[in-house]
């Protein structure tokens, strides 16, 4: 997960005009207040090939909270201010392993190639419930080549597997390459930003979005923290 983000950042680096100007960075932490809903244990007994891949019980990932109230899987991105870069040529990969989506939330640039891989010994079915983009619903038997798709409009798309109802994830299709997904420590970082005024948006699948305005002048690192209000149910 970590490496994936580094990779994304790297890819962002390549296409970023910030190489020419001075590069600032926006980084910070995503936390919550209150008590988040208890994540439920997933019963995979229906799919033995997946069940036996997990030694510890698997839980839902709607709200993944870490120590000292940090939140994982929050997409933080520049929603305004950054120039629209064209789609990176590298594909992002969405893996189905042990009847789970890895990563749970996958961010990509509009028009960027999305590869969907099935690492399981069972048939999966990828069904992005898109509203703005085109909704599609394809099955992927084990051992078949990766599906290749792309989305051309900005949208947060819930993804489900019709065969395994508990499998849910998200595609964050963004207009920018400046995005980062908070990790175990809830931290994120948006590097290589040329000086300017930015709107930073943080999106959590259950809690919605928050935005903050940031102004970067030259080579500096601004810290922006987001805090969501957690609901017990």
């Amino acid at each position, binding site marked *: 997960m970590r490496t994936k983000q580094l990779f994304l950042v790297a890819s962002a680096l390549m296409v970023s005009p910030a190489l020419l100007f001075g590069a600032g960075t926006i980084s910070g932490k995503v936390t919550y207040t209150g008590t988040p*809903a*208890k994540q439920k244990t997933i019963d995979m007994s229906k799919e033995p090939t997946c069940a036996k891949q997990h030694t510890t019980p698997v839980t839902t990932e709607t709200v993944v909270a870490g120590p000292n109230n940090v939140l994982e899987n929050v997409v933080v991105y520049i929603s305004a201010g950054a120039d629209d870069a064209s789609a990176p040529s590298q594909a992002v990969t969405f893996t189905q392993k042990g009847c789970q989506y890895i990563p749970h939330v996958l961010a990509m640039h509009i028009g960027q190639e999305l590869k969907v891989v099935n690492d399981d010994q069972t048939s999966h079915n990828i069904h992005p419930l898109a509203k703005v983009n085109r909704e599609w619903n394809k099955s992927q038997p084990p051992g078949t080549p990766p599906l290749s798709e792309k989305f051309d409009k900005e949208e947060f798309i819930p993804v489900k597997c019709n065969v395994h*109802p508990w499998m849910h994830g998200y595609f964050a299709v963004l207009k920018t390459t400046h995005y980062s997904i908070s990790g175990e420590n809830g931290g994120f970082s948006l590097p290589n930003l040329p000086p300017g005024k930015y709107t930073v948006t943080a999106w959590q699948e259950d809690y919605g979005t928050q935005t903050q305005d940031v102004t970067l002048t030259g080579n500096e690192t601004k810290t922006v923290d987001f805090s969501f209000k957690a609901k017990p149910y």
Partner: protein
Amino acid sequence: MGKLFAVIVIVIALASAIPIITHHWFWSDISFAPPEDISTHGHAIDEQLSDTMIEAGLSFLAAQILLGLFVWKFADRKPDAEIKTFPGGARVMVIAALVLVGTEILALGVLGQKAWANVYFRPAAPDALQVQAQAGQFAFYFRYAGADGKFGTPHPDKIDEGNSNFFGLDPANDVDSRDDIVTGELAIPVDREVHLMMHSKDVGHSFYVRELRIQQDFVPGLDLSVHFTATKVGKYEIVCTQLCGLGHYNMKAYLNVLSQADFDSWMKQKASEQ
């Protein structure tokens, strides 16, 4: 040529009967026998099945062998051979059919009625364990009332599978639903009647447990129920037998028949997971 036909028909008829009699795929160890019945009502169905098997099997063999013999005897006869008519003609046939089949029908009809009544014409006992079963594309989920003995009201608009809220419960506002226990397997205590209230989330499904001799469709918009008593501890497969979409073949769950003690601890453990 006629003789060849006769031989083939009779051989096929006899060969067809072998797996029925031996319950096995010829010499292999693949068994076709229905699994041991673990329900209180199933034996009636099994008797019915074997009675029918005997009657239908005999008439099958009789007809095929008769066909073979007649073809053997009367095919390609000499041109000058004269034509005989079956003694009694059509009248005999009609009477035979009426008598044989008629009695068979009455017998089976009456017996079958009993077996059917066992399943459907007896209401569930009031103290039966109430379990809600919900079928959806493509998994079964089961709900127990929990400590308060009350089921929370389901709200279709609140269904959120990503959050494992398969029944659309609303714990924020509905207190009854907070301690409801939702599971992916159907665990029941042995020798206690279970009253299964069946609800379909989306399309038609079916609840089929071979060992229980139970098959009942889930019909969208029509909440049905079945009740049964399992008499043998063990793990059995629940499968969907009503075409429900692309995952139909993979739609199953496990029926876990436990001793009362095990059942109680299972309940506790599940309650903690909610």
